[in-house]
């Protein structure tokens, strides 16, 4: 069962269709599957519903699918970094569903784990709870939120083996593991690819069962949104 594809275009080919739901990993520009997003642009599928914590920036991340007008709806927690997003939204060209970040993360985790709905305190008494079912447990009020699944999930990992086991690096992990579990088909771009057996099985973040396709994307450019530093104290 070969899961390795020669390039991002090949890895995304044959699994996309207009109107589908896509999950895209990453937080800001950290840990985003940039080359898989570019392949989706090149494959010209449209009317996508995209579930992603953010919407990229102008020219990077999901920003490039906004430019190409392939996204119909975003389900996100924060889209503040993207001017094109604002223009398309205000022009009525883009639908938007905001979720609290933790609720979004849990909805995706629930979807991957076969849980159609769960209760949370987050958002009770706010706009987020409007129209949703409220429940009382032990004297506190909770709102019911639904699990999310995707036709295709795209994720970025630091290391992957031929079985599809993945390891993420530092805060580039973020939404990638849950999204890998919640895609009917999950495609991973990995910086380093190794034979099965080279990753410590205790250290695997995403077991291979969740990953149907892998593509090796070495030496990718990683963008930094807010480069903050401190001065070196002279010795």
């Amino acid at each position, binding site marked *: 069962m070969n899961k390795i594809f020669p390039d991002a275009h090949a890895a995304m080919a044959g699994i996309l269709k207009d109107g589908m739901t896509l999950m895209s990993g990453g*937080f800001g520009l950290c840990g985003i599957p940039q080359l898989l997003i570019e392949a989706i642009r090149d494959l010209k599928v449209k009317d996508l519903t995209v579930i992603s914590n953010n919407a990229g920036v102008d020219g990077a991340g999901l920003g490039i699918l906004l430019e190409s007008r392939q996204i119909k709806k975003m389900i996100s927690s924060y889209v503040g970094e993207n001017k094109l997003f604002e223009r398309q939204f205000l022009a009525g060209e883009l639908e938007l569903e905001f979720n609290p*970040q933790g609720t979004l993360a849990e909805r995706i985790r629930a979807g991957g784990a076969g849980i159609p709905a769960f209760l949370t305190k987050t958002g009770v008494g706010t706009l987020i709870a409007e129209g949703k079912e409220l429940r009382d447990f032990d004297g506190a009020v909770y709102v019911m939120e639904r699990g999310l699944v995707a036709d295709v999930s795209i994720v970025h990992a630091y290391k992957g083996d031929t079985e599809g086991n993945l390891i993420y690096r530092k*805060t580039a992990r973020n939404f990638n*593991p849950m999204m890998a579990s919640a895609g009917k088909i999950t495609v991973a771009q990995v910086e380093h690819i190794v034979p099965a057996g080279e990753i410590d099985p205790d250290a695997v973040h995403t077991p291979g069962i969740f990953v149907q396709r892998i593509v090796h994307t070495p030496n990718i450019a990683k963008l930094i949104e807010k480069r*903050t*530093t401190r001065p070196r104290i002279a010795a």
Partner: protein
Amino acid sequence: MAWTRDQMAERAAKELRDGFYVNLGIGIPTLVANFIPAGMDVQLQSENGMLGMGPFPFEGEEDADLINAGKQTITELATTSYFSSADSFGMIRGGHIDLAILGAMEVTERGDLANWMIPGKMVKGMGGAMDLVAGVKRVVVVMEHTAKGQPKLLHHCTLPLTGTAVVDLVITDLAVFSIDKGSSGGMTLIELADGVTLDEVKANTEANFKVAADLKTKAA
């Protein structure tokens, strides 16, 4: 003499305790990290998926894979662990974070909080704010007392809410208020910034508040 941003952060740092796990919001709350007392063990959480957040990196040592929830480059510590955003918000929602220090646009005398939608501007989204105020054990707000001369401590929020009855303490440039959010205890002025008078606070506050007994003495 109202408090500076640094003085507000320094005051907020007094809410820290040894062994606390703390989430700091963007803006003034971020400055609180500079005032953690020496020898006190405080681990900072970044809700994108990290515990044990270190300071900004030295120039040239930035790592694109290592950012905080404000998307700034940071560093790791000996205590650091990384996890998914689902695990991170499980930590938050499950009440494992001792303290969140957050900015705000409006706070009411019952502890309602609005801090995610700016009127007349494009809505950017609530990010993790709603999860933090709903889940963290104790929520401290640090904010300017007024915005363009208008009070931010109100009877009712005019902006869309982030949470209802969620704020425990408000630190402004003028004063510090505790809020008995769980009951009808309401809001109490417990501290004045250096040189600020009770009348000055009253003139700039719409919310009802009591004045703590010991503060009355001090302010007299």
